[in-house]
């Protein structure tokens, strides 16, 4: 790729992760694990046919977690640094060990030894099947795609009045993980993305919408035309919105907004939130919380997903987690510590950035498609609301209480009748989950999340 710098190779970052662990052990750590990341990326944005910005990133970082032994059990701390020099490694190791000494020991702490690591064969097999080392774009190619996309979107209709521009981005991430039990592995992930945002209407009657797509290789991106037409047609369709009467309505979430429901579910089945009693599903394990036609899984190895991974942020082999099967909540997502505390199997869900503590996250999150087309769903609902936009953060994760700003279309007699905006939809997620009436066949991927249209039989609309 012509744009790439003579970068530190991934071989080196793997070695640096291992060296960092050795340094931490010399500084007094009994166990440690480390992450090393190198990121390079380019992006270009085009607005009104002109280059608006060109950006280049060249990032690197080390993250270290070190454990020390105390009479009351293991204590640990985490630290990160962008300084990959020898002195940088040394001071990071010393800092994290000193901090671990003031951290409170936890009798349940799980050090990075004896994890269920993938084997060398699995690692090499994975690398062959998931070889994403090239995004497939140069800056000129990205620019051409963004130019084409923006131009098609601006010329889509006379109603398109302005543009926020089109962006093409591409880059490479190299990640290395190593732990003091001798496991070390690395992977490279390239990706390319294309997005556009345009405005329809004028002055007080403007409506904006966008579309985007991301793939490992630019060759697999939806075409500039596809993305442009999606954004522009959505913006135009929103023109001249009205309000509606407050009251109870059946509500359909299109795939784009249905992914937010998956997000709320994942927040609630996060084992750490369960442990902390900060989840409205904390007491719902093995209970039927959805109708029996709902199936939701966390799949780390899916041909359409951007979230594929062989091992998680603790080097644990990722498994396919059937979170909801026939409506029943089967498992919480857990790292090794949470699995131990909850007394459940590990799910390979440790999610880790350079900074801060280990979190919990899904790989590819998939709400399995149902058998009704979008049109059939509208027909079966008869009268209600199609939600195409949600804004705000009105979800209480502890109680499941839900109240968000929304926009979309009124459904009358089984058809979309007119756009509505400036409304809220409210309910409680537990009830919303139980009241799902239909699941569409229109499964759509958004990076590492896939959802079909979802119909809920009743929610309160305020207008």
């Amino acid at each position, binding site marked *: 790729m012509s744009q790439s710098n003579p970068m530190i190779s991934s071989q080196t970052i793997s070695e640096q992760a291992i060296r960092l662990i050795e340094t931490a052990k010399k500084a007094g750590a009994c166990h440690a694990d480390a992450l090393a990341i190198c990121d390079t990326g380019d992006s270009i944005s085009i607005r009104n046919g002109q280059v608006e910005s060109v*950006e280049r990133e060249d990032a*690197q970082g080390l993250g270290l977690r070190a454990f020390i032994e105390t009479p009351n059990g293991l204590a640990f701390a985490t630290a990160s640094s962008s300084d990959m020099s020898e002195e940088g490694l040394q001071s990071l190791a010393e800092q994290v060990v000193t*901090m671990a000494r003031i951290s409170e020991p936890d009798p349940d702490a799980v050090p990075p030894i004896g994890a269920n690591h993938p084997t060398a064969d699995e690692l090499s097999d994975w690398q062959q099947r998931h070889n994403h080392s090239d995004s497939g774009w140069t800056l000129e190619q990205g620019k051409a795609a963004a130019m084409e996309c923006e131009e098609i979107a601006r010329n889509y209709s006379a109603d398109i009045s302005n543009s926020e521009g089109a962006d093409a981005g591409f880059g490479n991430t190299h990640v290395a993980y190593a732990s003091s039990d001798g496991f070390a592995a690395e992977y490279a992930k390239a990706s390319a993305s294309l997005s556009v945002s345009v405005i329809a209407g004028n002055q007080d009657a403007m409506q904006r919408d966008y579309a985007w797509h991301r793939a490992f290789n630019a060759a697999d991106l939806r075409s500039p035309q596809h993305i442009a037409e999606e954004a522009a047609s959505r913006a135009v369709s929103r023109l001249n919105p009205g309000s509606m009467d407050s*009251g109870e309505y059946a509500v359909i979430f299109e795939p784009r907004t249905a992914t937010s429901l998956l997000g709320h579910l994942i927040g609630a089945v996060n084992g750490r939130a369960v442990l902390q009693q900060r989840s409205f599903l904390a007491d719902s394990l093995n209970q039927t919380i959805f109708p029996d036609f709902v199936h939701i899984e966390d799949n780390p190895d899916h041909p359409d997903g951007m979230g594929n991974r062989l091992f998680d942020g603790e080097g644990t082999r990722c498994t396919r987690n059937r979170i909801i099967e026939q409506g029943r909540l089967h498992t919480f997502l857990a790292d090794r510590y949470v699995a131990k505390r909850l007394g459940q199997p590990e799910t390979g869900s440790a999610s880790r950035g350079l900074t801060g503590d280990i979190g919990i996250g899904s790989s590819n999150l998939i709400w399995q498609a149902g058998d009704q087309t979008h049109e059939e769903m509208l027909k079966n609902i008869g009268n209600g609301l199609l939600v195409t936009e949600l*804004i*705000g953060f009105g979800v209480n994760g502890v109680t499941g209480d839900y109240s968000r700003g929304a926009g979309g279309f009124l459904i009358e007699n089984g058809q979309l009748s007119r756009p509505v905006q400036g409304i809220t939809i409210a309910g409680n997620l537990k009830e919303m989950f139980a009241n799902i009436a239909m699941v569409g066949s229109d499964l759509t991927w958004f990076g590492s999340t896939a959802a079909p249209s979802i119909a809920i039989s009743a929610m*309160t*609309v*305020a207008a």
Partner: protein
Amino acid sequence: MSEYNPGTTPAPTLPVSIETLQSVLAHMLPADADDGDLYLEHSSSESLALEEGRVKHVSASTHQGMGARVIKGEAAGHAFTDRLDTSALLEAGKSARAIAQSGQNRTPIAIHDVSAPALYQAINPAESVSFSERKTLLEELDALARSIDPRVKQVFANVSSSFSDIHIIRMDGAAIHDARPLVRLNVSVVVEHNGKRETGSAGGGGRFSLSRLIDGDEAKRLVQEAVRLALLGLDAHDAPAGTMPVVLGPGWPGILLHEAIGHGLEGDFNRKGTSVFADKMGKRVAAKGITVVDDGTIAERRGSLSIDDEGTTTHRTTLIEDGILTGYLMDKQNARLMGMTPTGNGRRESYAHPVLPRMTNTFMLAGNDKPADIIASLDRGIYAVNFGGGQVDITSGKFVFTTSEAYYVENGKIQHPVKGATLIGSGHEVLQKVSMIGNDLQLDPGVGTCGKGGQSVPVGVGLPTIRIDELTVGGTEA
């Protein structure tokens, strides 16, 4: 055991010589550039978090790097690197130049220091309080929360601090330095009663030392506040659904201004004509009596900056005066393109992010009404005192913010607390429906973080008690 106290070690100065920076600048800037700068940053942060009665999460991070920027007309080239060796810096400069047409280099100007008056002390805020003192504090807060009410089941407390050392080298050779401390204390609790759980949280902070934050009773007040809010939630009724008058309490409910008008007045959106406010300069956008300012100059506030991230001294900018739109929030590029003056609102999350026009501390000036009279004016409506987050679509003007403490009011009397509900309105209309303005302006406690274009920056808001005659309340009681 020796006490680790990172503040006693001075933050390392950036390992880049003036000669190297001069060379990067000389190679980066084409003769026809309108602007360009280098932004060098060294940031360190520390965080201690308590849960289950133990300080189990101790973390730190140290990051340094350089952002290079070249601006020509409406175009901007931006590159950043975490590597501070000469070749990486020169390469970044070359990447930033990608937007340039001219092959000619600009005549280099010698780099010289320019000083700006500081609104906060150039100290690492962590310096004043050792790790073990911070740990003891969190443990005391945990014990206090549990002693207030037996229904308190979980306590989470977090104390964090950061210190950023910034050098901006401008195209004219001016080198401007800012050292930015920031601290934050947060407490949140889960209460349980009869199988029902609720949560409440409170926080505070600013650009001052950790010792200022934790000395005195402020930390204890945050615990009491978090417990009070959580217990209130246990008694909350369903919120009403529909359009009704709403009274907002003073302080943090100023998030209304941030969402409803602040974002819509940012220079980039108005230059491009994508904001609903783009054609409203000099026009009425709020009721008479309403004046709204964005003020980055208040000493030690979370949203304040001595200089913005382009080296411009921050200002107090009047956005709305007596109901009339009078000002936009400007960085240098958008100001130049619109023929306006930069207002010190060019901000970036870090060297690794581009500059955008952003808010600092945004608030409405006080009026003359007594808060009690404003509440008493409600026949049937909502009195909202605390909020979670908010969001806006600056093109349609639709904005939302979600209550975390609100009451149903009938015949001027507070009836009962209601569950969190999202309020939705139109930014260009909502302030025209304000009919009463309290005499009790308050700024928020120092907890705001604003997101735009994937970047987070600390901000502040403020509001006196106000009455809005009509706003849509997104409850479940239709």
